[in-house]
């Protein structure tokens, strides 16, 4: 088997979600049942198309496809490497859960919602399969723009404000990112991702490398919500409908992280970053983000707002792992992309169930809610434990690897950050669980035992199950660990 193969499969994967889009446009209002089938079918078919690329991805091989191009740097090309495959697989699973959940959750403006859901799916897959920074930027910007309709879906005043804030952060970030891409192309060899450093200290000089690096961190940092660029997150997440928040937090924030991963491994490379000495700064920023965001999360009464701040903190775990620049740290960081997606996905989907069934958003009103929604709150509990990092959950694996990574990198004090963060996680998640199950009058009239509809319950439970599966069957091929090992093995 050659190292590189050319296949049309990546294109098919990227355009498969458009089936849902067309379905929404054609059947949208006239045949709701058919439209629903197409939404789920299109997403599932995408997942099925991604799976055949698995064997190559596991061996670290690459699939390529050139699309169009002209002029200097302008080249649209796709490339599926292990990292891209891992991310795409995660995207597809999360999207499938979210779409099924949406069938039960979304009641108004369905056509628009599913159209933009499908478009975002397509563009996120495009980011995952980009062969060069130009393509990545193209899909990234599209994704950035088309997330807006999901955030303001409810068209309430709050949602509009959140949407405005989102754009106010994203559009300048896009311009900054464009500057980064073009500077990289101007000073580096190529925009292509080759799995190695493509910009050289000897040719360019340290100041410019630092400038380009900071520009990239600013550009991607807005999506990856590194403080102080996180401002839009706590507003956008609560405003969006629950499945969209789950996607926002679970994967769309990770698209920013994915960009940083590319910058770290395919633009700069580990040695160059060590030589530049920027990793410590990024570690400090990530550490501050983790602690501060957790503290912010504690003071929120709105459940989704608390979850949003928690996301800000958790995404910085990934940044932390990446910039430890040690193998175990990288494994921990990259694993957390998937682990956090499932944990936070579960939590957001649960919050959606709570809102949908009881209309409650505030944590202080949720006493005794576990008696009404035992399964949902069970999943919530599992995910909360995962967040804290209890063994046998996905969160524990991440924290363990990150801890080992910190030791490998000879920066043991970052273990303290992890421990403090776990503690804070416990402080802001466990009271919710406690209140839900052990507080409140069990005979309260408002809370008869009444689980939500299957369409919403199944994704919640599935996501919750993943939190445990990923924590127990860590090394099964196909689960994140096996793929991340290949990625990290090729870098270090």
């Amino acid at each position, binding site marked *: 088997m050659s190292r590189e193969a050319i296949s049309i499969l990546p294109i098919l994967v990227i355009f498969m979600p458009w089936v849902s889009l067309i379905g929404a446009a054609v059947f949208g209002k006239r045949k709701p049942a058919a439209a629903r089938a197409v939404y789920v079918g299109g997403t599932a078919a995408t997942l099925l198309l991604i799976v055949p690329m698995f064997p190559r991805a596991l061996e670290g091989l690459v699939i390529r496809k050139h699309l*169009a191009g002209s*002029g200097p740097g302008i080249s649209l090309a796709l490339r599926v490497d292990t990292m891209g495959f891992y991310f795409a697989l995660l995207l597809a699973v999360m999207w499938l859960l979210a779409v099924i959940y949406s069938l039960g959750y979304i009641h108004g403006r369905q*056509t628009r919602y599913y159209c933009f859901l499908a478009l975002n799916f397509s563009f996120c897959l495009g980011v995952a399969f980009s062969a060069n920074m130009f393509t990545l930027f193209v899909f990234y910007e599209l994704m950035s*723009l088309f997330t807006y*309709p999901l955030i303001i879906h409810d068209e309430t005043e709050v949602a509009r404000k959140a949407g405005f804030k989102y754009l106010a952060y994203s*559009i300048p970030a896009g311009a900054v990112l*464009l500057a980064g891409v073009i500077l990289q192309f*101007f000073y580096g060899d190529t925009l292509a991702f080759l799995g190695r450093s493509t910009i050289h200290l000897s040719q360019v000089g340290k100041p410019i490398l630092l400038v380009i690096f900071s520009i990239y961190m600013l550009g991607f940092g807005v999506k990856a919500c590194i403080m102080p660029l996180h401002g839009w997150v706590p507003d956008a997440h609560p405003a969006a409908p629950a499945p969209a928040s789950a996607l926002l937090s679970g994967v769309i924030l990770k698209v920013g992280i994915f960009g940083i991963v590319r910058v770290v491994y395919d633009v700069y490379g580990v040695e160059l970053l060590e030589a530049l000495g920027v990793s410590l700064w990024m570690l400090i920023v990530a550490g501050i983000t983790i602690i501060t965001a957790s503290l912010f999360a504690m003071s929120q009464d709105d459940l989704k707002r608390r979850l949003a701040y928690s996301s800000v903190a958790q995404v910085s775990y990934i940044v932390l792992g990446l910039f430890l620049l040690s193998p175990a740290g990288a494994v921990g960081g990259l694993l957390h992309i998937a682990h956090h997606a499932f944990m936070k996905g579960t939590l957001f989907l649960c919050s959606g169930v709570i809102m949908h069934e009881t209309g409650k958003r505030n944590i202080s009103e949720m006493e005794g809610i576990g008696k009404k929604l035992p399964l949902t709150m069970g999943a919530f509990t599992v995910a909360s434990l995962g967040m804290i990092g209890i063994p046998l959950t996905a969160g524990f694996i991440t924290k363990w690897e990150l801890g080992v990574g910190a030791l490998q990198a000879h920066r043991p004090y970052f273990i303290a950050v992890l421990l403090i963060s776990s503690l804070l996680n416990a402080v802001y998640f466990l009271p919710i669980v406690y209140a839900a199950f052990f507080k409140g009058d069990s005979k309260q009239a408002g809370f008869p035992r009444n689980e939500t509809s299957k369409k919403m319950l199944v994704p919640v439970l599935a996501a919750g199950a993943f939190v445990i599966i990923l924590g127990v069957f860590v090394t099964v091929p196909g689960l994140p660990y096996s793929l991340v090992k290949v990625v990290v093995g090729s870098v270090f």
Partner: protein
Amino acid sequence: MNASFNHPVLIVVVPLLFAALCPIIGLIRRSLVVWLALFGTACTSFLALSLIGRVTPGNDLSYHLGGWEPPWGIEIRIDTFGLLMVCVISTLGILLVLYSWKYMERELPANRLSYYYTLLMLIYTAMLGFSITGDIFNMFVFMEIFAITSYALVAVTGEKRALRAAFKYLLMGATSSVCVLLAITFLYSVTGSLNMLDISNTLAELSPDYIRVALAALVFFITGFSVKAALFPVHVWLPEAHSIAPSPVSALLSALVIKMGVFGIFRILFTVYGPGFANETANWKSLNEVVAWAAALSILAGAAFAIAQKDLKLMIAYSSISHIGYIVLGICLLSYHGTAGGFYNVLAHAMGKASFFLVAGCFLYKKGFRRIEDLKGLGRSMPISSGAFALASLSVIGLPPSAGFIAKWNILWGCLDSRKYLFAGVVLLGSVLAAVYCLKVVYYLFFTGPRMRDTRIEEAPAAMYVPAALLSLGTLFFGIFSGLILPSLNSASRILMIR
């Protein structure tokens, strides 16, 4: 060259012929005129597109009018840039005539419709001639034809404010034409020729006594064409003229006519004078720098004014000033990437801005709305027009994967190439500002107003939304398949810089 190959001159003659035919046919049957105009533009477009294979970078197509050898006779000289202009003008021409069919029926009394199409054909003739001529005085004549025609087109409805706008436009336009004529005279007095290539050769070895006159001529040229292009300090005529004119005319003026000013600047700076002109490279370069600064200011000022506007068409008009800035900045960066990017923006902006104005026209036609705030929820009742607007705004902002993005990418690349980092910042800031004014409209169209089920679809006639939608799709097409045009623009610009 095959002697029977007369396409270059036919590009000018055919629309002129149809311009003359229009009022005559109009006397016989009024309803035929629009079909005649459509046929005429289609023929022109066919002629223009048929030249695509024949012009390659560095290998211009030269045609001697009446068989007179240049520099005595008038030469038609089509290079890659001219070809791009010709193709854009003639293709956009078809769509604008098609759009005018329904739109102008309402704006004009039936007996004056045929004159409108005459003016339309005449302005195409002039712009096509302007783009391909190799003779500097011939260029002036064509410039005057399209200028006078465009004054008339602005005032064509006879509406009060339109008349005033047209008069303002006329005064500034005519003064700028005098500047250009004066510059031609200066140049003729030192070179004794009117043929561009001939002048260029003479200028390369100009005796030091005449350098000052040549430089003065250059300054007058730039001043004159800047007014036509509506660069920042002399843009004052544009917003009113472009926003008050009937929508297809606005689209024509914004998408094509102001590009002629830019093309004039380009022709003078590069084809006639050129980098090596008589060892005066330093002066030539500093003049380029000055124009680039004016362009950079245009980008920011145009975008800032556009944000402040409440009237949709006025906003689009100010946005044109900003985009003209991009084009001129790209050309004046003295990097071939920049030049290629600038000309790519000619294409991108022609499609994007024409689509904007046509959509604004659809709203006016169907609902009578001009103010941005009135557009609430129109995305639901007029989905195709609004969708076209949203798609075109990608290109106007310069978001990928639209043609505007490719242009911006190349202009940015040119900025880096010539180490002008400040201009790169201006380009990026300009696109952020563009996002503000474009997305504001998209927001009103799609995310406000009544719910879907409460609205009925009331789309404008197909003859109006189809051109707008096609132009929007064009921005997307040329964004993804930039390989069709960009490589030849790149190599043509490179040749230009070496010369």
